[in-house]
């Protein structure tokens, strides 16, 4: 086995390459990978020094040898990697020393932080991995990652395109998070699930400060753990690291006791450090490990250990929801994100995501919704579909450890879906039914649960990742089934020791005062052992019941969360300002930016007025009044936007009313807005969008960093008459100019308006824009002129 050399053994890696190069007189910065072509002898001599010091694995000089970084050098990825691995191989010839393909971050941030798509990152890593294996690397090491998503792209690229064992190490700050906020537990459990062979920490800190994080890492994985710290911290004046070789080696010894078995050094270390490390490790053997085999789900920033009751929010689902269906059909992902955020604010722990609806291509939609949600929601997701391709597409782009809803006892379903669950390290919900339908007895359902568990285990999915749904049936139709379900939950939880899921709301279908029945069933189910209720977290009765249950079960230590919930102390959502009696008008509510009141008053108004009157006679005049006050400097941007958002809640009421009637939505005209190519900061554009939408315009928001061609194509395809462009930097004004130039070449060019921090009326004219908008308010005036 190629991976035998590091299993249950102590292994010594190498130290820094950059530090040693600088000691040998090379200036910092630049592209050290070019040395593979220009000075192979120097590199070979460094490898030999590390090998002589005791390194059993040497990292080839390929850290930044990716297509993005090399693109500027005129050299190809394969060319550099072949040369680099060749040099290391020569140094290692005739020894047991392994040569690693070293894979560092790409040097650009991935979406949603930057504009590099996950798929493009995968391609760039794939190119490196394939070249590395071909050139004769023994393993791949992905290192210095701070973004779990980028680490995932790299790991998938190596695993799917090579047979190399793969190590992944990430860089953490002292507080136990990476720059992107990723926690140690999220990293460990995600990467183990994705099939890394060893994981660990490198760079950023010295061994003393990394030690507690390494201990935490060891508790969160069964894999061998790697420590490759810096030689302490650098001095800002001279750049020197503050820890010497002996101190470095000694500071790593507590990590050995915590369970680390693979050791090396990063910035500031040299062969001397490795020599001391080897001496310190002589005669030592791996320490016993204590893995915490808990159910777990996560995003990078939210590690969720499954203990007690965890609420799964059910609202991202089109079933029975006209407005949601409309959003899916219209590709309105903002609406879906809004539904998700509301559940997060209401206290959900996990969000179920279901986008299956006639006319929607789930394979395309599910990954897009996953990406959209993880751009702003910090909760882990449960992907809910019966379509294996959609599940795979969704899991692939998911950042963290997700759950899959669902499989059932049917052999064909298990065979189709479990390998996908295993590949992406997800958890899986097994429905206690099979070809024969839902067993009418608890025993029947438990038998299916056992079958699902066995199938999962034989697929390599650990027991803690298997969740069983004993199925809620409607009590008004099959009354005796409520107790059978509870009995099955009890057995699955107590005897099989698995997490239990139930879609709770279904119980009360067809009965009056549904919340009462649902709440009662929820309470009884939790008492029976339900750990993962799927409910509507916006429904107060349900979340109250969960809060109370957590007190009685002892999970809510000292009743803190309960007290906070009911004294309003740390209430997650700010309650709308109480409105003074009933004399507030809709116009007042909009002007004062009172969302909840505006929505409520709009509903009332719709009883007597038409949708159109509401818009024309209340909404627009109120917004205009705010706009004028803003222009005069009597109101400020936050107030303008509050009013716009109150208007938004009125529009939501109108939209829902029209969707109920099955009519077409009220829209006053469509326009495109986009932040031009090269510009990645887009809050200005989003402000304009908020205000325009709340005047009733349909805004096609193409996002940020948008190529001129995309804007032109969309304008043509959607027959758009008005295009708004935003630029923040002088360096992106040329992209704005180019976009306008291309738009003006169309046979029927749309009207253009421009704005943004650096844009002036003079620039606007020079670029050939039709209008200059100094702020969001002026954009509305322009839209009025052009579209009405």
């Amino acid at each position, binding site marked *: 086995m190629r991976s035998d050399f590091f299993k249950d053994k102590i292994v010594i890696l190498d130290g820094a390459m950059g530090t040693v190069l600088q000691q040998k007189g090379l200036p910092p*910065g630049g592209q050290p990978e070019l040395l593979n072509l220009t000075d192979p002898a120097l590199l070979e001599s460094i490898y030999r020094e590390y090998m002589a010091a005791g390194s059993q694995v040497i990292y080839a000089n390929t850290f930044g040898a990716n297509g993005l970084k090399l693109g500027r050098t005129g050299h190809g990825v394969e060319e550099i990697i072949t040369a680099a691995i060749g040099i290391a191989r020569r140094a290692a010839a005739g020894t047991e020393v392994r040569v690693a393909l070293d894979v560092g971050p790409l040097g650009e941030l991935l979406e949603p932080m930057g504009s590099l798509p996950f798929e493009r990152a995968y391609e760039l890593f794939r190119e490196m991995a394939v070249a590395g294996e071909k050139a004769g690397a023994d393993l791949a090491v992905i290192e210095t990652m701070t973004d779990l998503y980028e680490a995932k792209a790299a790991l998938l690229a190596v695993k799917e395109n090579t047979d190399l064992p793969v190590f992944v190490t990430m860089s953490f700050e002292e507080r136990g998070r990476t720059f992107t906020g990723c926690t140690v537990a999220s990293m460990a459990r995600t990467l183990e699930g994705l099939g890394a062979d060893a994981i660990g920490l490198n760079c950023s800190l010295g061994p003393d400060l990394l030690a507690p994080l390494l201990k935490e890492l060891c508790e969160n994985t069964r894999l061998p753990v790697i420590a490759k710290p810096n030689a302490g911290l650098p001095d*800002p004046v001279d750049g020197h690291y503050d820890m010497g070789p002996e101190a470095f080696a000694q500071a790593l010894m507590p990590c050995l006791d915590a369970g680390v078995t693979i050791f090396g050094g990063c910035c500031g270390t040299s062969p001397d450090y490795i020599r001391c490390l080897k001496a310190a490790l002589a005669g030592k053997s791996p320490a016993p490990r204590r893995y915490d085999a808990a159910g777990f789900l996560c995003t990078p920033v939210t590690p969720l250990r499954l203990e007690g009751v965890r609420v799964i929010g059910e609202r991202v689902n089109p079933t029975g929801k006209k407005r949601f269906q409309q959003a899916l059909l219209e590709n309105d992902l903002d609406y879906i994100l809004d539904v998700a955020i509301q559940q997060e604010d209401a206290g959900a722990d996990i969000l179920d995501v279901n986008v299956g609806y006639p006319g929607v291509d789930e394979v395309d939609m599910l990954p897009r919704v996953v990406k959209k949600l993880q751009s702003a929601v910090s909760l882990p997701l449960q992907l809910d579909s019966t379509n294996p391709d959609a599940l795979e597409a969704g899991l692939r782009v998911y950042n963290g450890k997700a759950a899959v809803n669902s499989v059932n006892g049917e052999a064909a379903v298990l065979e189709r879906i479990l390998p996908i669950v295993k590949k992406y390290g997800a958890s899986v919900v097994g429905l206690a039914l099979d070809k024969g339908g839902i067993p009418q007895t608890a025993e029947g359902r438990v038998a299916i649960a056992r079958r699902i568990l066995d199938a999962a285990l034989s697929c390599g999915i650990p027991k803690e990742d298997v969740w069983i749904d004993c199925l809620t049936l409607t009590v008004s139709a099959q009354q005796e089934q409520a107790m059978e379900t509870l009995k099955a939950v009890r057995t699955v939880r107590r005897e099989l020791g698995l997490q239990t899921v139930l879609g709770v709301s279904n119980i009360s279908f067809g009965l009056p005062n549904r919340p009462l029945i649902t709440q009662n069933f929820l309470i009884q189910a939790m008492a029976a052992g339900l750990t993962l209720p799927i409910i509507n977290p916006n429904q107060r009765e349900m979340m109250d019941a969960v809060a109370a249950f957590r007190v009685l079960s002892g999970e809510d230590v000292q009743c803190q969360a309960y007290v906070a919930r009911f004294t309003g102390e740390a209430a997650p959502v700010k309650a709308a300002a109480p409105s003074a009696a009933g004399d507030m008008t809709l116009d007042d509510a909009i002007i004062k930016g009172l969302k909840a009141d505006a929505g409520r008053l709009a509903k009332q108004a719709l009883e007597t007025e038409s949708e159109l009157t509401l818009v024309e006679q209340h909404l627009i005049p109120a917004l205009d009044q705010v706009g004028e006050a803003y222009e005069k400097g009597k109101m400020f*941007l936050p107030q303008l936007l509050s009013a716009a958002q109150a208007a938004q809640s009125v529009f939501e009421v109108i939209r829902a009313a029209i969707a109920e009637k099955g009519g077409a939505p009220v829209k006053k005209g469509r326009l495109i807005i986009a932040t031009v*190519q090269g510009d990645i900061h887009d809050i200005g554009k989003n402000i304009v969008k*908020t205000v325009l939408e709340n005047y009733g315009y349909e805004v096609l928001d193409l996002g940020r960093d948008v190529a001129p061609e995309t804007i032109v194509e969309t304008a043509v395809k959607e027959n758009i008459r008005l295009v708004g462009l935003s630029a923040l*930097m002088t360096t992106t004004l040329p992209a704005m100019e180019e976009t306008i130039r291309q738009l003006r070449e169309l046979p029927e060019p749309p009207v253009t308006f421009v704005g943004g921090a650096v844009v002036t009326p003079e620039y606007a004219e020079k670029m050939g824009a039709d209008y200059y908008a100094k702020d969001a308010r002026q954009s509305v005036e322009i839209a009025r002129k052009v579209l009405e």
Partner: protein
Amino acid sequence: MRNGQEVNGVKPDIDEALRYLGAGNGAPETLRREISAMADRLAGQLQPRWTYQVFDLRREDGAFRLCGPDIVLAGRTAERMLAQCGQAVLLACTLGVRFDALLRAEQVRDMARAVMLDACGSALVESGCNAAEGEIRARFPDRYLTDRFSPGYGDLPLTLQPSICAALDMPRRLGVHVTGSLLMNPAKSVTAVIGLSDRPQRARIRGCAYCSMRETCTLRKGGKSCAL
């Protein structure tokens, strides 16, 4: 010293945040209160991180060159700011991508609060620069610091960003990247140059009120200032 690590206790300046919102003195009390609460919460959630390094300055062909990373600080701004300096500090400060994530989520929840958060973030990263400057000052008690100035200010070119980024190893130390269009990502990131001199330095940018020479300044007596 915690180079590149998060520090505690840096708070955004509320007045500055209000100025970013276009509401300097005229801000209604409710807005000021909201900004103030938001600023406190933000400072509790995340703190600026910074890194800096000191370089010798050499004058070559009429421009200043930072020795080591080989960066040329061309233009009149650098010339005037660094005229009496033998060394300069490159400083980078950031709130990190976690601020961008907070801002993205806030934009979904409530755009009005998002623009306030954005302003608080800008003020917080400025406070971070001030704190970093204080640390530098404390480290060099015998030297005088010029005001700090950044690429894009005066005629100091933005095109310096990539080389400053490389010289300070910003991706690794701070998680800050410079894009092809010279934007820094994450958004709330600042790079700056501070001159180190053996002689007292005028507060050319911050203004006469901050200047150690305000009592004796002949320009000021003549009703003028040395501002660039």
